[in-house]
């Protein structure tokens, strides 16, 4: 009998044994893990969202605080080597303002006389940590002098701190917008795919119509319709609704095509022949089968939400000051002069690029892993 039940000895065999009882999500994780770029991007996204979550703690300065004396100041470089030689503790030089004798333009240069050491957990402007308790501890900063790691804008506000705060709004608008699209997409797409026939035809034509409308003018029209006297929060919600108004069509198509494909699967017919109810077939057999695909598509559609918000705000039609988002920040960099003289104002753009790329890579990885049963 020993010949029939060989002892599993090698690690490969034991691993195979574990795979036999591995669920869909575990198999997906194993497959996703092999996609290097996606894993790295996932880490990047976790960092980006943590930045959004802990914005007050991570921002060294108050993003709304004006510093009339250092307008359009360049980034302060973090240094280890100064005039006194090497220092283990990083520091920045303060600003010294200079006026160009010919153009009379004011500019700021590092002043080696003012040495401000960077410290962890320094006291700064007060805030409520996660909205729970009052504190004034920040992760890093300087105790005396100024610290603008990415320079200042036209009102002397800290660009770095503003990007950190903007992360919260820009990334969350993607999530909420996608959530709304998903809701619409699953309901409408599911209807279309499950009932088929004339319902399906009508929904498909509607989707095609919506997709053929040029997005920017539609957004512009819709956001122009938002009342001017709305509070920033209301505008924020309004914008997400506008974004998801278009966004649901893509997801509805995915849901519908999955429904149509799954309706023909043998195992769905098997459940039907066993007398399973409609609800059971949908929620026990069909939904789990396309959930992973939906998650992948959702990941891939978040970037368009973020870009949508950025474009709208950049055009001055989306969020408005005092709300801070990447789009609002980029409004500052609308002309060539900015790019020439104060390139640090473009930094929010890099955040947008990094986030969008990361979402796309993660989405790619998820899509590849979404069906771990491919033979």
């Amino acid at each position, binding site marked *: 009998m020993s*010949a*029939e039940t060989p002892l599993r000895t090698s690690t*490969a*065999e034991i691993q195979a044994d574990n795979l036999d009882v591995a669920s869909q999500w575990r198999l997906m994780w194993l497959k996703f893990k*092999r996609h290097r770029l996606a894993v790295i991007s996932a880490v990047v996204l976790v960092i980006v969202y943590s930045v959004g979550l802990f914005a007050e703690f991570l921002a060294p300065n108050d993003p709304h605080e004006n510093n009339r004396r250092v307008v359009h100041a360049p980034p302060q470089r973090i240094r280890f080597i100064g005039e006194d030689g090497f220092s283990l503790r990083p520091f920045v030089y303060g600003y010294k303002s200079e006026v160009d004798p010919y153009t009379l333009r004011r500019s700021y240069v590092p002043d080696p006389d003012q040495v401000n050491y960077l410290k962890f957990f320094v006291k700064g402007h007060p805030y409520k940590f996660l909205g729970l308790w009052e504190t004034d501890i920040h992760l890093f900063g300087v105790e005396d002098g100024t610290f603008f790691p990415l320079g200042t804008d036209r009102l002397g506000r800290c660009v770095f701190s503003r990007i950190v705060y903007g992360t919260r709004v820009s990334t969350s608008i993607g999530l909420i917008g996608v959530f709304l699209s998903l809701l619409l997409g699953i309901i409408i797409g599911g209807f279309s795919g499950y009932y088929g026939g004339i319902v399906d035809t009508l929904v498909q034509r509607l989707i095609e119509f919506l997709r053929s409308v040029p997005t920017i003018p539609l957004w512009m029209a819709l956001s122009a319709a938002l009342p001017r006297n709305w509070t920033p929060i209301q505008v924020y919600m309004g914008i997400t609704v506008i974004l998801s108004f278009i966004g649901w069509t893509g997801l509805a198509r995915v849901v519908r095509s999955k429904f149509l494909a799954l309706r023909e699967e043998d195992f769905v017919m098997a459940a039907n022949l066993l007398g399973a109810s409609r609800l059971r077939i949908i929620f026990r057999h069909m939904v789990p089968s396309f959930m992973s695909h939906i998650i992948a598509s959702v990941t891939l559609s978040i970037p368009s939400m973020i870009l949508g918000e950025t474009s709208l705000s950049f055009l001055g039609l989306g969020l408005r000051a005092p709300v801070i988002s990447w789009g609002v920040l980029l409004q500052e960099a609308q002309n060539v002069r900015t790019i020439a003289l104060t390139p640090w104002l473009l930094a929010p753009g890099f955040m947008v690029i990094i986030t969008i790329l990361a979402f796309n890579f993660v989405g790619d990885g998820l899509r590849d892993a979404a069906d771990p049963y491919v033979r």
Partner: protein
Amino acid sequence: MTRVLRVKDLEVCFATTEGTVQVLDGVSFDIRKGEVLGVVGESGCGKSVTALSTLGLLGSKGKITNGEITLYQDDGEVELSKLDPSGPMIRKIRGKEISMIFQEPMTSFSPVYTIGNQIMEVIRHHQGLSKKAAREAAVEMLGKVRIPHPEQRIDAYPHQLSGGMRQRAMIAMALSCRPRILIADEPTTALDVTIQAQILRLMRQLKDEMDTSIMLITHNLGVIGEMADRVVVMYMGRIVESLPVKRLFEESLHPYTQALLTSLPVLGSKKRNERKRLASIKGMVPDISRVPPGCPFHPRCDRFMDGLCNVHKPRPVQISPDHEVSCLLYSEVAKDAG
């Protein structure tokens, strides 16, 4: 009879995510001029890999690690396993000396060109004919494979033809340069039985007409019985037995061959209304990455000898001039006799 192809001690490995897997282990056989060599075995036994390696079509993951594949031409020999799989030498051989037809002709034709275009391309590539002459040759070929109205059908796209007609067109393309060897990989598996019969008859007729040798890969022993002259039986990347088809059904010696034959219901064998059981092979084919030691068939074999079959790899034993068996039952006998 003269040899046209000789495969000797062929070993092929594939790179997978779990590591290297050896899919062929010491495969040796000859194909002679004008004969049909049947290759049978269950899925995963390596019969298709054998065919692909002769054409250098293993892809980037597969590699010939040992052995020789020799093509005998009128003016000398070519060692196919040494040729660069994407080089000009093997491309001259593919389609001209050795051509191949597949199970599903839909996937082997490009859907965006007419079948005539694709057949003409092969003819022009290998024979350097003018466009007009190539078209004439293609029409003639389509007529040869009994496609009605070939001068019209030559302009049809693959999806406009039925499965049977597509397979005929595929055969026309494969035979358009009168290759020495035609490799047919499950050529009728996707077809209905009446269409299958038509295609098999066509292949038989064309083989005689063009004096082509055929390597016929199939899992269907009926097709082998009807078509082949000799047969090699494969199991887990090895040839377990090779013998003339005439002897296959009565005189096969390897337990796997015998079991394969008895597990198959035979048409017309039912004499009374009664229920019979089939003799089945126990268990299933192991994963190719976990080939059992010794004889790979030993865990499923009824005549398993402990201490021998699970230890020693059987070597081919010559039973008669055309009959070889790789089984320790017979090598013991051979040893005792010698």
